[in-house]
């Protein structure tokens, strides 16, 4: 008895010292077979819990409440969104649901297989079809919606109207501003090139240096203006809108010169009211120690107006986007287009999504490799719901996509024939939502059309074998937004495609392609440089257009609908990422094996620490992929190898 009691005690001790809980897998691998509906049903049934979890934590309690804050701005302009069904916090859900339903109806006609697959996911998971549609279309809708709202904000925000370098710029024997004239009176003014090739003195953001050979004792003068906004600062009754006040706030000035920040009150900054209506501000910045000689210098400018807007909270003024201007100083010697707008890191902006492909001379032993690090929205939840979906359709090619639970597509994938697809968003107002506003003005509804980019990817992976066919499929599907796509195949073909929705029905169709081959003029810019290659066998894309420039430049009603480089907050982040990535590829040219490619993805300066979502390397000739996800950032984890051919054989 005594002995058995001791044994019992021992068992108790042992039993509590084991069974330590383990983190459940944040990445699931699913092999889906059968009809589209059957594939969707298997997906929904297997991942029901994660689908619900992702919907709640990413959409219901994060993104939707966040977008609800935009209702005021949108409803002030578009009547539809003043209706009751959008009230009580339903704005973003209803907006996304209706846009998703619109896309779903188009899919029923053009790609019924994807509509069926979504039905399968809904039935398998027990979630409503509406919610599954929202999950599968929100990325496209959200990005287009974000563009419109961001643009509306920028319309009402201060802006730089003119930017000058003051000093001996007009007597140095150099065409400093690149307008083709030397030492003209305004040679120190950054100029905008108009469609007819002429220049005016309106400030224009640039992907390269805005000025060259600036004297080291130059001062910097900028004219900032606070526009009256969408409908002025007064309501229809002539009353001042709450919190709105036109006019620049000099105390909001922040100037970062390379790594040093100067703010209002610093003796190097002087300000004075400017403009006939007094709503502008002249700012003169004289670097206290002068400018470094023979260098590339970066300036980041920020300013706000006098408004103190309470809705949406917190109380805030209207602020311009951080503008980054790069220039060279006397003795540097390079032309403006040879100096990328890389800039100094501002200490907070994260790199954007990126993708690149290498082959032949760029890659060790000439192997074809394509890589992507997708970063957009993690919210401390997306990375817990990642999925590798292998589709073995009854009719079509076996293919794999890298995505999330409940979503039947991914931003990248590969098929059994070695065709690879990778997509990154590229902000544009050439999107269906802006198109609706153009056509129907204040009666417009924010309804997306076209094929969601991930489903276009599925379409081409299921039906195409090579880059040419895939490219045609992409064009035929139409674009829901601005997308930068890299296509590659096992023959070594690499192609970049920049797409927008072509709401102005321009001849280019909103579809721009280029490849690394420098012998083809279609792949070169006006300076004869490859659009996105450092050599003959590589290509890269981030989140801005390099060929589709300007993506749009028009008017809707009285408003200038500007190109992406004027307003998107991704622009300078993307430029910096793109340039850093190019530098990495150049440094490793000809040496990139699998590890080399992964090492580039793991470069700290290329990793968004907050919103990284997945990282993948595709080897189309081997039919293998290597993915890292399930942690934040994705590249912190090991790259897991999958042999698609082996999966196909199972």
């Amino acid at each position: 008895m005594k002995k058995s009691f001791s044994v019992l005690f021992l068992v108790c001790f042992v039993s509590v010292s084991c069974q330590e809980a383990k983190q459940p897998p944040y990445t699931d691998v699913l092999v889906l077979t059968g009809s589209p509906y059957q594939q969707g049903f298997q997906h929904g049934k297997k991942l029901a819990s994660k689908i619900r979890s992702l919907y709640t934590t990413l959409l219901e309690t994060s993104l939707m409440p966040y977008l609800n804050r935009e209702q005021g701005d949108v409803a002030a302009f578009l009547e539809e969104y003043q209706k009751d069904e959008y009230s009580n916090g339903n704005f973003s859900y209803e907006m996304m649901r209706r846009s998703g339903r619109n896309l779903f109806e188009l899919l029923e006609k053009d790609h019924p297989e994807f509509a069926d697959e979504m039905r399968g996911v809904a039935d398998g998971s027990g979630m409503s079809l509406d919610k599954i549609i929202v999950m599968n279309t929100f990325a496209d809708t959200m990005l287009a919606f974000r563009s419109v709202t961001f643009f509306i904000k920028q319309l009402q925000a201060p802006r730089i109207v003119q930017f000058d370098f003051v000093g001996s710029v007009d007597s140095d024997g150099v065409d400093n501003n690149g307008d083709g004239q030397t030492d003209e009176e305004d040679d120190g003014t950054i100029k905008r090139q108009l469609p007819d090739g002429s220049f005016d003195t309106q400030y224009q953001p640039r992907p390269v240096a805005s000025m060259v050979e600036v004297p080291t004792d130059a001062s910097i003068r900028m004219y900032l203006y606070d526009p009256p906004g969408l409908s002025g600062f007064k309501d229809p009754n002539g009353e001042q809108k709450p919190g709105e006040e036109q006019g620049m706030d000099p105390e909001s000035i922040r100037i970062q010169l390379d790594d040093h920040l100067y703010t209002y009150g610093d003796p190097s900054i002087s300000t004075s009211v400017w403009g006939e209506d007094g709503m502008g501000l002249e700012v003169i910045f004289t670097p206290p120690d002068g400018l470094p000689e023979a260098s590339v210098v970066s300036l980041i400018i920020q300013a706000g107006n006098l408004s103190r807007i309470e809705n949406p909270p917190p109380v805030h003024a209207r602020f311009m986007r951080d503008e980054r201007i790069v220039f060279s100083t006397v003795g540097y010697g390079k032309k403006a287009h040879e100096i990328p707008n890389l800039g100094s890191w501002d200490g907070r902006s994260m790199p954007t999504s990126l993708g690149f492909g290498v082959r032949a001379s760029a890659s060790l032993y000439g192997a074809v490799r394509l890589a992507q690090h997708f970063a957009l929205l993690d919210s401390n939840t997306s990375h817990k719901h990642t999925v590798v979906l292998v589709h073995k359709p009854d009719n079509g090619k076996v293919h794999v996509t890298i995505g999330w639970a409940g979503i039947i597509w991914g931003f990248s994938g590969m098929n059994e024939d070695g065709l690879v697809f990778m997509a990154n968003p590229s902000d544009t107002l050439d999107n269906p939502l802006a198109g609706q506003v153009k056509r129907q003005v204040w009666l417009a509804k924010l309804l997306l059309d076209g094929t969601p980019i991930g489903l276009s990817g599925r379409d081409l992976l299921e039906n195409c074998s090579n880059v040419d066919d895939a490219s045609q499929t992409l064009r035929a599907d139409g674009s829901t937004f601005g997308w930068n796509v890299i296509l590659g195949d096992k023959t070594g073909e690499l192609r970049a495609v920049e797409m927008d929705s072509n709401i102005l029905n321009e001849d280019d169709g909103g579809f721009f392609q280029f490849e690394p081959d420098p012998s083809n003029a279609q792949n070169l810019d006006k300076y004869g440089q490859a659009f996105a290659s450092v050599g003959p066998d590589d290509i890269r894309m981030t989140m801005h257009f390099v060929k589709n420039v300007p993506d749009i430049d028009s008017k809707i009603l009285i408003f200038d609908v500007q190109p992406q480089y004027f307003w998107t907050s991704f622009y300078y982040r993307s430029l910096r990422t793109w340039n850093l990535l190019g530098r990495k590829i150049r440094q490793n040219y000809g040496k990139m094996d699998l590890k080399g490619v992964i090492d580039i993805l793991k470069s700290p300066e290329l990793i968004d620490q907050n919103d990284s979502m997945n990282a993948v390397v595709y080897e189309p000739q081997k039919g293998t992929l290597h993915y890292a996800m399930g942690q934040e950032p994705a590249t912190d984890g090991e790259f897991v190898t999958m042999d698609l051919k082996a999966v196909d054989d199972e």
Partner: protein
Amino acid sequence: MVSSTLFVIMLFPDVSWAGFTQTAPENTFIIDQNISFSLLKYRYDNFGNRTTLIDPIERYEPGSGLQGIMIPEAQVSFLVSISMIQYGLLKHLTLAVGIPVVLSTDIDLNLKWIPGDYQNTLGRSYSEDDFWAWANSMGQPKPTDWHGNKGVLSDIILGLRYRFSDDMKWFKKTGVRMSVQLMGALPTSTQADPEEVASAGTTMWDLHSMGELGVHLSLDKDFGDPLQGRVSLGLDLFYEALFEHEYKTPRGTKNPLLLSYSSYVGDTYSLDPGDFSGLALELDVIALYGPALASWLVKGDAGAAAKLPPMVSLLFRYTYTHLGQSDWKSQSAIWDWEREKLWLPGHKNTLFAKMSISLLRVGVPLQLYVAYRNQSWLAGKNCRAADVISGGLVIPAKFW
């Protein structure tokens, strides 16, 4: 009352004055009324580092960097009344009933804020007020301190202790006593309001100081010369289980962004807390025997008074408690893990000291004591370190 005073002298005829194996004399009641105040400010993480009860929360605005870091330096206090009655069923077999009533619980969140990155849309970093204005615009109010559990019953405790060594020669010869104790909890407590970010129930899980069913095997040894019987050592081995219970899942009715779980967790979830096991070492010291008066209590017999408990005694105890893994079971393995990772297997190191003053020897049928329990001085692992100060009085009584 008359009978109780008459037979007080029989209360401690031949038992030790302290230790794990102490039992109430046959047919005798010992009434113990205790008030405890516990304060919980820290926990020990998986690496044994002292940290805040709730991890700092980094908040990011999509695409705009770090909004700030919210540091909940929460502290939780419980004021608990414990009424315990022991009754000697047999000479060496005692039944005990404990009735814990939580008089109040106070949770002070003490939310601190470290501003994050400069936000170009604001022209400044988020202040704490900025952040909560932002959160409020999305429907999430700032969580507030919580005060509740005013006179709420916890689980009633039943215990049975049997000192089996008294009639065995070897034990008598060596001065060693041994007992076995069983204890169990009746489910009379109240669960916390699931919709509150900060709230506490009165269950054994909330109090986290003992299990719902336990067994103890204990040993005491008195030491005679040269310590003149002033010192006793004790050892207690124990295993206490906490049972699986079902809880309501928050629906987000009060905190829509922080507590909207039910849509993917399910309407209810189960929690099987980790069991406790371990050992305690105890040193009992007689600080002062005090006078033995020939009082009314001993019918004027000073010799009998000398056999009563010493006037001042001290108790020092160290307890090592192994904590088993707590297991959440719901429809979401991810949600379960988010909780389980804070309750991985671990341990607590508890120091306990008590001073008792007995007035029996001077003719007053009363014992008073103060005690202090500390879990924050010695590092533990995956545990909350509650420190408790308590005081009480003990009245022996015999009615037949």
